[in-house]
């Protein structure tokens, strides 16, 4: 068996040896925004956040990974399948452009993936509609857990009503506020920092995880667990730098570079049936 069968050659693999290249890439390229707030402490989120307790034993990982790859049941497979059927009418990943809103792009992407998993209609959602509200319309860093808390309480606005990267009060209006209520997160896991078994267990259940990485100053979305050796694993990520980065916006993190300093994983989002008017307006 080829352990790296799930990793196309065009996909960047970031590990403990080469990670500085990717930090430099982001430092030198203004189009790759990042933005974790180093002063932020992960809060205990009240409400329906569940501390992760149920891990999948490592003895089951290899069989599960093999089954999920062979049967195309991983989250990237779902997005690719929906795209091929015309049911995901946008890019596979978000693009934060030059904003410092990676910390909210990743949670919003997890909401879009969870909606797809539940069988809800594809509606592109706006990270700025959450990030700008939390940070009082400043382009500054944050963490995914604070973003998901806001999405639980208030929701996120479709991009058609609030452009993805618009840190702009003009879009904070009655219409966008009405739309938010259809796009809330209801239940999620808060993972223990740097706990790989919890991260892997989420991915083996097709639960996307927004992960904050101090070494990169960046937050991305973990979408699948990969096997890279006899007992070696890596994670497939959706970045928020558009589809031109990596392999259609995706890459791989390995070694200690895949261990998250902050990790939140939505499990349940609002189920909505829209009026024809709203669907046309929000799509």
């Amino acid at each position, binding site marked *: 068996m080829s352990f790296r069968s799930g990793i196309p050659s065009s996909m960047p693999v970031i590990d403990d040896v080469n990670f500085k290249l990717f930090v430099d890439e982001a430092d030198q390229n203004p189009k790759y925004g990042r933005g974790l707030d180093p002063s932020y402490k992960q809060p205990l989120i009240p409400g329906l956040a569940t501390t992760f307790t149920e891990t999948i034993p490592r003895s089951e990982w290899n069989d599960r990974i093999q089954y*999920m790859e062979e*049967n195309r*049941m991983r989250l990237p497979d*779902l997005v690719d399948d929906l795209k091929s059927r015309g049911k995901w009418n946008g890019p596979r990943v978000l693009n934060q452009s030059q904003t410092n809103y990676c910390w909210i792009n990743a949670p919003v992407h997890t909401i879009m993936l969870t909606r797809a998993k*539940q069988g809800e209609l594809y509606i592109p959602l706006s990270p700025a509609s959450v990030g700008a509200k939390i940070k009082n319309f400043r382009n500054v860093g944050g963490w995914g857990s604070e973003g998901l808390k806001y999405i639980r309480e208030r929701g996120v606005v479709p991009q058609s009503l609030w452009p993805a990267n618009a840190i702009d009060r003009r879009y904070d209006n009655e219409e966008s506020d009405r739309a938010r209520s*259809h796009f*809330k997160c209801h*239940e999620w896991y808060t993972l223990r920092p740097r706990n790989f078994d919890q991260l892997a267990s989420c991915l083996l259940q097709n639960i996307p995880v927004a992960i904050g990485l101090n070494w990169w100053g960046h937050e991305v979305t973990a979408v699948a667990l990969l096997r890279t050796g006899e007992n070696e694993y890596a994670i497939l990520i959706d970045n928020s730098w558009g589809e031109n980065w990596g392999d259609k916006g995706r890459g791989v993190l390995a070694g200690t570079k895949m261990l998250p300093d902050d990790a939140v994983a939505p499990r349940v989002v609002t189920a909505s049936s829209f009026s024809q008017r709203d669907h046309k307006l929000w799509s």
Partner: protein
Amino acid sequence: MTLKQNIGVLLVFFAAMLWVQGGGGLPDIIPIPSTAPFPTDKPRVLVIHESEYTAKLPVEQLDILTGTRFRGWCQDNGWEFKSWDEETPIVQADESWKKALSVTRTDTPWMVFSNGQSGESIPLPTTVDSAISKLKEYTQ
């Protein structure tokens, strides 16, 4: 006319009156009661689970909940598909789906489906193939 003939004429007259009062058309066919577990105007299948416990599910069942094969088959064969946690907020969802989520269940994961006329409400089949076989029985 004999007494029997008089009774016969009266019965025919009586039947004719009933026919006219009923609108004059052919008598309605007695409707067969629907065996659909929830009302819907199109084939729909809902898979219900507890997202907090999916770590305990065999990967073959998780495939039905989250993978591409079952939902792809549904789409190709005219079934709308949803995969919801039993606590999914549904206030803003379609009435038909709300009723699907509220069917009586004895366990999770669960599968409920209806083509409008008939359907079933059953424990989730153990594989994608068995779930597809079940829906095929109700695909028109």
